[in-house]
């Protein structure tokens, strides 16, 4: 039996970030926010309005924003930077590498509109490489929560962690199904459904699709264990290994390139510790394009049906 998940409304994860930031503004006087001309898109307006002295509009100058954020940590501030995922990572990679990661600065790089679900703006803005870029940086924590509530909880949690963090979220409204009062633990996988035949490790927007896939599989008599990997780095190694040991085949699902993403991290771990048949649901070495988020997820094979198919492929490889 698949555990039943329901939601009362769809909400965008970026609004979860905005709500979390606004709450931090009230509870933590050291939290400051910087934004490169995308305050509305990042839902940072509430913080900006409530704490104008702690909000820094940098204009369209992301490199300077990252450098300023790094500098503001000196003196005890906890800077949250906000722009699209593309401009939060690839555009400013060297600034993050030297001034944040190598310098060990307590900067929270918060990135919206990640992946294909940015939609109509097309491939220039749809970064599918950001998880890989960021997880390669020594010491960088990489988090990709699955819904509004979890993004809000993650935003609040990272303020209490001392070190650089990349927090990735998105544009579209998606089912808001995780508890509003959840405690977010960095690096701790969340077991959504216990199963015995296969494990689906999903992150971000693909978590709900994994639940949908689990329901379809259950109807066909296949028992899927579903685990939400909201923290890609540090990966919850023991949770991944324990589940793979139980089901002996796994599928990973993410809105990212296969290269460098969650699937890549799980495959590395299992190859070293517990070689296990694995299939990946991810974008396969391709740029995106214009279209609605739903159309793009379908065209690039990131729907529940693709997870179901991957499960069937991996079950055939199971020994």
């Amino acid at each position: 039996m698949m555990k039943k998940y329901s939601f009362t409304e769809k909400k965008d994860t970026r609004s979860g970030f905005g709500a979390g930031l606004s709450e931090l503004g009230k509870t933590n006087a050291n939290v400051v926010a910087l934004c490169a001309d995308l305050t509305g898109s990042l839902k940072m307006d509430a913080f900006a309005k409530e704490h104008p002295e702690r909000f820094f509009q940098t204009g369209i100058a992301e490199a300077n924003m990252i450098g300023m954020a790094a500098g503001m940590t000196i003196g005890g501030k906890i800077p949250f930077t906000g722009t699209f995922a593309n401009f939060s990572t690839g555009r400013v990679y060297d600034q993050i590498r030297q001034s944040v990661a190598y310098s060990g600065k307590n900067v929270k790089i918060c990135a919206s509109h990640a992946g294909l679900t940015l939609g109509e703006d097309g491939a220039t803005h749809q970064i599918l490489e950001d998880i890989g870029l960021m997880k390669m940086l020594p010491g960088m924590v990489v988090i990709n929560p699955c819904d509004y509530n979890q993004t809000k909880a993650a935003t609040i949690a990272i303020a209490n962690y001392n070190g650089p963090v990349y927090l990735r979220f998105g544009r579209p409204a998606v089912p808001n199904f995780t508890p509003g009062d959840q405690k977010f633990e960095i690096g701790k996988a969340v077991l959504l459904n216990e199963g015995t035949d296969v494990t689906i490790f999903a992150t971000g927007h693909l978590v709900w699709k994994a639940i949908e896939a689990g329901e379809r599989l259950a109807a066909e008599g296949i028992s899927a264990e579903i685990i939400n990997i909201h923290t890609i780095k540090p990966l919850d190694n023991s949770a991944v290994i324990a589940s793979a040991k139980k089901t002996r085949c796994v599928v990973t699902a993410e809105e990212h390139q296969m290269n460098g993403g969650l699937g890549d991290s799980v495959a590395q771990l299992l190859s070293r510790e517990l070689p296990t048949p694995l299939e990946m649901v991810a974008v396969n070495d391709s740029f995106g394009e214009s279209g609605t988020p739903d159309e793009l997820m379908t065209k690039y094979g990131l729907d529940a049906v693709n997870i179901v198919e991957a499960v069937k492929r991996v079950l055939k490889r199971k020994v």
Partner: protein
Amino acid sequence: MASAVELDNIVPQIRRDIVRMVHAVNSGHPGGSLGCVEYLVALYFKVMKHNPEHFSMDGIGEDLFFLSNGHVSPVFYSVLARSGYFPVKELSTFRKLNTRLQGHPTTHDHLPGVRMASGSLGQGLSVGVGAALAKKLNNDDRIVYTLHGDGELQEGQIWEAAMYAAAKKVDNIIAAVDMNGQQIDGSTDEVLPMGSLKAKFEAFGWDVIEVTKGNDTTTIVDALALAKQHTGKGKPVMLLLKTEMGNGVDFMMHSHKWHGVAPNDTQLAQALNQNAETLGDY
């Protein structure tokens, strides 16, 4: 507080440290380091309020310095050690395996006195502006100082930070450009002429002070005193220091050749002959 005579006594020792450090590992950047010895000596031994014996990353209540052109690490390390941040003998570990004195400065190995990694150019002005903003939030009235190479100004991020600092009235920062007119491939005018830096920074909204004798400690101390008077008036302050690359070692002057080349044994002896051992070699 050191007098001008005392500052001038420190300078040759810093130069000795620089050429000896670079010679010992046959690598590093002596030319640019020698060119800004006087500026860093003035800052660390005269102008800045700082606490070398009890280094704290946050530097609350202290003046802060950020080196943006990290390749001149030899002068930075020498000045930090000589002002008491870490033992002078540690200068002998420069660029060697397991050292805290990496080729370019870093916080990674917790070297006291360093608050930010630098080396990849163009990032230090943004960092300085951020630190200056944090000081304002903390009601800390001390000053943030930064140093940049002139070639480094070819990086776009510098101008992003310059635009921001002026637009948002970050007036507790004094940036300085080490205008030695040289970069790796030749003179800045050969590589990419930048025109009038004074006009450019003024157009961006900075208060610009030109220092024509950028290797003269008395001139620098006076210029820094003037610059400090200009802080707190709604504009960031820029010092344009006209310097001589390789200053104090005659065969390293008037050329970009010594940007990233170490002296051999004979050249080291020559350089040391020109600079007295005033404080004792490490």
